[in-house]
């Protein structure tokens, strides 16, 4: 009798939680959804649209600019227009910066976490110091490192304190460039890279015994690779009429050091949390099996840190693709040697008043970040649902 009463009461309550109150819940969420719908998705749509027009050319600030639809013309110019060489250079800078910065942060963070993952006196102090730069603005970091890397002062005169000669590297004002390549060879290069990855994946699948998968991956890789090597050699697929040299600008080294100084604490914290989360029994079991400290690190701890490395690559990678404030403050937006598309978008739009081209750069930037973020979000949230 009483139990049924309670049940009836509970059912009444839960139906209440699904009735009027559910409507209120929806209404309370609505303002945020509408705001984000407009400010994120509406505005992205608008940006893509602007990138497909000429947006009044130079008169883009007029309230009613004359707009003509031009299709992908802005994108075509960015990749093949002679005047837009700065965009391609910025793209190359961004790739080099992102790769080296992410690897440096992972390495430094793992090293710091490994050192700190043991009973130490003053561990809190060490952790605080390594994480301190994370609390700073990129603008502050940029200003400080601009002073640190003055060609005739700062780090360069440090050796003179112990009687050694001064360093001569020009840091962010350096014009040296290494690993040079011709932009016209980029399409072939990208296809070859994809082919190699596919072939390697195919070989791995073959070893694991999934023959069908191996063929599905490996054969297209082989075909694409062979096609590029046989047909694509010496042919210009880039659409760029003249050879154009790009490469790794050594001026970026200073930016990479500053960025790593600021962000390595983040990877340290991630790895440290990961190491602390490994159950002690696993280590003990390995110890009983006769594993040395180094072997435990290599074969027990490192493999368990893989998911953390993946998260860190995605988070740091998207920060690297978007990097703007640090370069702005450290070498200025006008230093082409250290510029990236995020900076060029700002210059093109707000200094050059070329809204359409700025929108095209912004769209490409969003595309790159999405390629990194969306697969990660899908897999992370799916895992969360299963848990």
């Amino acid at each position, binding site marked *: 009798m009483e139990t049924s009463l309670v049940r009836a*009461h*509970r059912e009444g*309550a*839960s139906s209440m*939680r699904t009735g009027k109150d559910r409507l209120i819940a*929806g209404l*309370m*969420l609505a303002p*945020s959804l509408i*705001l*984000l719908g407009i*400010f*994120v998705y*509406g*505005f992205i749509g608008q*940006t893509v649209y602007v990138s497909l027009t000429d947006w009044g050319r130079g008169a883009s600030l007029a309230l009613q600019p004359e707009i003509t639809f031009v299709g992908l013309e802005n994108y075509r110019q960015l990749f093949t227009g002679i005047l837009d060489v700065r965009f391609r250079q910025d793209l190359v800078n961004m790739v080099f910066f992102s790769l080296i910065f992410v690897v440096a942060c992972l390495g430094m963070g793992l090293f710091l976490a490994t050192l700190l993952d043991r009973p130490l006196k003053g561990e809190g102090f*060490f952790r*605080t*110091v390594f*994480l*301190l730069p*994370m*609390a*700073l*603005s990129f*603008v*502050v970091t*940029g*200003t*400080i490192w*601009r*002073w*640190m890397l*003055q060609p*005739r002062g700062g780090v360069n*005169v*440090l050796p*003179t*304190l112990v009687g050694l000669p001064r360093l001569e590297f020009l840091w962010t004002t350096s014009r040296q460039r290494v690993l040079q390549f011709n932009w016209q060879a980029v399409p072939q290069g990208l296809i070859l890279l994809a082919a190699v990855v596919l072939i390697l994946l195919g070989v791995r699948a073959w070893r694991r015994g999934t023959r069908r998968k191996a063929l599905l991956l490996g054969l297209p890789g082989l075909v694409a690779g062979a096609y590029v090597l046989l047909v694509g050699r010496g042919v210009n697929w880039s659409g760029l009429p003249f050879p154009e040299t790009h490469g790794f600008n050594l001026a970026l080294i200073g930016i990479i050091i500053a960025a790593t100084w600021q962000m390595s604490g*983040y990877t340290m914290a991630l790895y440290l949390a990961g190491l602390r989360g490994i159950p002690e029994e696993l280590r003990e079991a390995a110890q009983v099996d006769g594993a040395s400290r180094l072997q435990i690190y290599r074969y027990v701890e490192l493999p368990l840190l893989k998911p953390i490395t993946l998260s860190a690559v*995605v988070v740091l990678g998207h920060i690297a693709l*978007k990097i*703007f404030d640090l370069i*702005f*403050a450290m070498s200025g937006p006008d230093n082409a040697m250290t510029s990236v598309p*995020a900076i060029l*978008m700002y210059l093109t739009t707000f200094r050059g008043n070329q809204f359409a081209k*700025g929108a095209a750069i912004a*769209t490409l*930037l*969003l595309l790159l*970040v999405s390629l990194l*973020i*969306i697969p*990660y*979000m*899908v897999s*992370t*949230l799916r895992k*969360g649902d299963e848990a």
Partner: protein
Amino acid sequence: MADQPAVATGTPAHDLQLSRQKAAGRARWGRVAVYGVLILLVIIYLTPVYLTVVTSLKDPAHIRLPTAWEPPRPISWEGYATAWRDFAPKLRNSFILAVTATALSAIMGSMNGYVLAKWRLPGERYIFPLIVFGMFIPYQSILIPLFQFLRSVNLYGGLPGLILVHVVYGLPITTLLFRNFYAELPDEMVQAASIDGAGFFGIYRWVILPLSAPAFTVVIIWQFTQIWNEFLFAVTLTQPAAQPITVALANLAGGEAVRWNMPMAGSVLAALPTVLVYILLGRYFIRGMLAGSLKG
């Protein structure tokens, strides 16, 4: 026969003791090495801080590139005096901006998190990822329409417009943090309150809110730091009178022949609020930072 004692050491117990001693010795040297490396790294990580503080305290006449590392003799507060005179209004702007936008985005985020964690809504499987995606986008990709929108509603150039922008683009991360926090609170508590007759707001007011202090701490610290440090919106959407400190500092460092005591003192002033927050409440700061990688 003289070998006898040596043979005696062959007993298992003694062997074990010996190897323990050896291991302890090795471990001691290992610890010394670890401390040595850590102290070296601390020195390297603090080098920029040292140079900043030293330069900020020098008389501009004494700042020369070759002697940049020498301590200030005598100490001059001129850099701080100038920086404070020029930056006080900008610091005020940053303060108003960060406090207001943090408060608003935290309140809205808390409500969103409550709804998403404790109420069943149609399509919520898609709503949450669509909200969260907003925190990863490069803001360049919405900047042009945003700029045009703010101009058309007369909010371009001033603090209210910038506050609005930071509230809106702060929603994804605040919603994410609160939603993950509330998801950990047992549903039974909500059900019990519901049985007692509490409705949507009653549950929030009497069950959720009293338990929210840790989540609010994390969110407030995170948002305050992020908004204080932000630059892209600040540089594109404000006019000089409403500029936050980051823009003023970046503009200052733009000039080549500057007297470096002033930008260094300015950097210290600009960094002080967030560094203080970090040193006093570091635990919560780290929690917010780690949550940025999606897992609560």
